[in-house]
């Protein structure tokens, strides 16, 4: 178990192409459940492989509990890693698979046996211990990969690289909740890489959102939803994502290009760059027919998501998603009411904190 810290860490792959990871300082608290969320190619896996030592960063240091491990090879780092495609040692039984990391480290057979049985119990593999690993399904193979990490009682962190990619949808749910449960029983730092926000938000206490080699925000799922610190986070988290309207901010009011004035909860200084107003569809709803409140918009279509309905609108020339309240008929001349407390102002993509 360990607190993992990055000190001015950066990485560029050989052969040019600039930074895969831009210079960053970061701390992963001991026993935290982190999700590393971002689109494909944003550097999530690179970051994970730097933690495990499969990749050596081109700059900066990696610290485990304050000790510099940057130069240590993977096998001496006490990290476990579960890969996208299940890796099991084909010719071995489940028991031998689980004991493999212990055998390689010279743990006595009696102690290893007890550990293996304990972990198999945690993972629900106890009945399969003497089966050949290659005869198991993908979900069980993934459990074995995870188990090979858990058997080591000195493990500092368990890293997951999109571990549920090849698992059937109905088993994904089960494995995810088992993982969550496991984290409660075995308090070890877990870092879970995914591009699926549902996976990230249900698994993690803290979600790290990345884009183009940069960490944009670290926060609880609530924080990412309520106060996305970057335009990308607002857009990437939530379905549909946050709405953005170009505007001019003067004091505590925003002016849309169409001339509409929107009162803001806070006053803002003079802002440079591209200024946008952000609001989640959940906090923008269509006003009842006849109401003169809110902003006029043109309705393009209505999506029924089952639990709620989303109106796709054209607001001042921008695409805009708003909630269509339950039971309300689709209005012919829709107006959008915004919850003022939920309005955020972004300058050049970054959240700007107002005063008051």
């Amino acid at each position, binding site marked *: 178990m360990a607190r993992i810290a990055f000190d001015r860490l950066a990485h560029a792959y050989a052969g040019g192409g600039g930074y895969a990871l831009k210079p960053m300082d970061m701390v992963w608290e001991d026993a935290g459940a982190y999700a590393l969320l971002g689109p494909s190619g944003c550097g999530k896996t690179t970051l994970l492989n730097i933690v*495990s*030592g*499969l990749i050596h960063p081109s700059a900066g240091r990696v610290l485990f509990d304050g000790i510099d491990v940057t130069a240590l*090879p*993977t*096998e001496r780092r006490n*990290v*476990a*890693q579960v*890969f*996208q*495609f299940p*890796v099991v*040692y*084909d*010719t*071995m039984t489940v028991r031998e698979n689980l004991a*493999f*990391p212990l*055998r*390689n*480290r010279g743990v006595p057979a009696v102690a290893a046996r007890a550990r293996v049985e304990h972990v198999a119990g945690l993972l629900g593999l106890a009945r399969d211990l003497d089966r*050949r690993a*290659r*005869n*198991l*399904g*993908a979900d*069980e193979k993934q459990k074995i*990969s995870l188990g*090979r*990490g858990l058997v080591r009682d000195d493990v500092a962190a368990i890293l997951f690289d999109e571990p549920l990619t090849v698992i059937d949808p109905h088993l994904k749910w089960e494995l995810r909740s088992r993982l969550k449960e496991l984290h409660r029983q075995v308090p070890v730092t877990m870092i879970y890489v995914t591009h699926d926000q549902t996976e990230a938000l249900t698994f993690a206490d803290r979600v790290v959102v990345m884009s183009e080699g940069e960490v944009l925000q670290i926060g609880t799922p609530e924080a990412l939803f309520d106060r996305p610190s970057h335009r990308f986070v607002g857009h990437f988290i939530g379905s549909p994502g946050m709405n953005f309207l170009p505007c001019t901010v003067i004091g505590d009011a925003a002016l849309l290009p169409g001339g509409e004035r929107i009162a803001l909860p806070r006053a803002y200084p003079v802002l440079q760059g591209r200024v946008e107003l952000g609001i989640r569809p959940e906090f923008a709803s269509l006003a009842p027919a006849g109401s003169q409140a809110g902003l006029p918009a043109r309705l393009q279509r209505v999506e029924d998501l089952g639990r709620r309905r989303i109106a796709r609108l054209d607001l001042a020339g921008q695409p805009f998603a708003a909630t269509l309240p339950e039971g309300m008929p689709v209005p012919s001349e829709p107006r959008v009411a915004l919850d003022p407390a939920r309005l955020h102002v972004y300058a050049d993509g970054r959240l700007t904190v107002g005063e008051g």
Partner: protein
Amino acid sequence: MAKPRDDRAWVLVLPVLLLVAFSALIPMMTVVNYSVQDSFGNNQFFWNGTGWFRELLDPATELGGRFFDALWRTLLFSALCLLIEIPLGIAVALTLPRRGWGVAVSLVVLALPLLIPWNVVGTIWQVFARRDIGLLGAAVNGLGIDYNYAQDPLAAWVTVVAMDVWHWTSLVVLLCYAGLRAIPDAYYQAAKVDGAGAWAVFRAIQLPKLRRVLTIAVLLRFMDSFMIYTEPFVVTGGGPGNATTFLSIDLVKLALGQFDLGKAAAMSIVYNLIILTVCWVFFATTTRGQSEAVQGTAQGAGR
């Protein structure tokens, strides 16, 4: 929908049937025919029934004796070739570079012996190993070791086996290299995470993943070495004495040297059956485990 049926289609198969008949069926039946007859000059044949076969399979007779001597020699030769070439091939494949310019260079160098005609391989070694002018032979004798493949049976064996290793290890290397390249990186990464050393990686990942190609390699090398003829014929001619007279060489001596068509035909049929049986047994035992694995995966996926 029923497929249209036209019996005239059989006519289209006729050329192939004729070809196979002339190239395989008729020669083979001729051999079967010879094997049950005794031949004399002037094209006279006398019915001998299973006589040649009974004599062949009885080590006490002259024919059976030379047959079993040659058979053991051939089996020993195959065993030596497999024992050296398979481990050596795996070892070389493991040390080959996985990427970069070295890959192409190594593959070309390795492929060279495979591209040389067999009688040329024999000639190369025949000269290379000569004690008077051969680089190898003269060098070994220069070191004070008495080495003369034309007179010493042991030296002859060493030469013939070394030649086969030189000629065919590349095939094992190339097959294994292809097998190793097919292992996804995640396996090596997982092994690193699990703290596995090189030997543990080999035992847990590489060897199991090489099983399929090794099956093919062993099968090919067994068949080829068991049927070897050209290279030892060129180098030692089966000698000194009968020391390197393998089954194929003995067969040619019997058929074309002594012109004993009946005995030679019986011998070639038995020879053929041995190869078929060994290959079938070997293939059946090594692929049985794999078909179980396939069924297992199917079950696993179904659950």
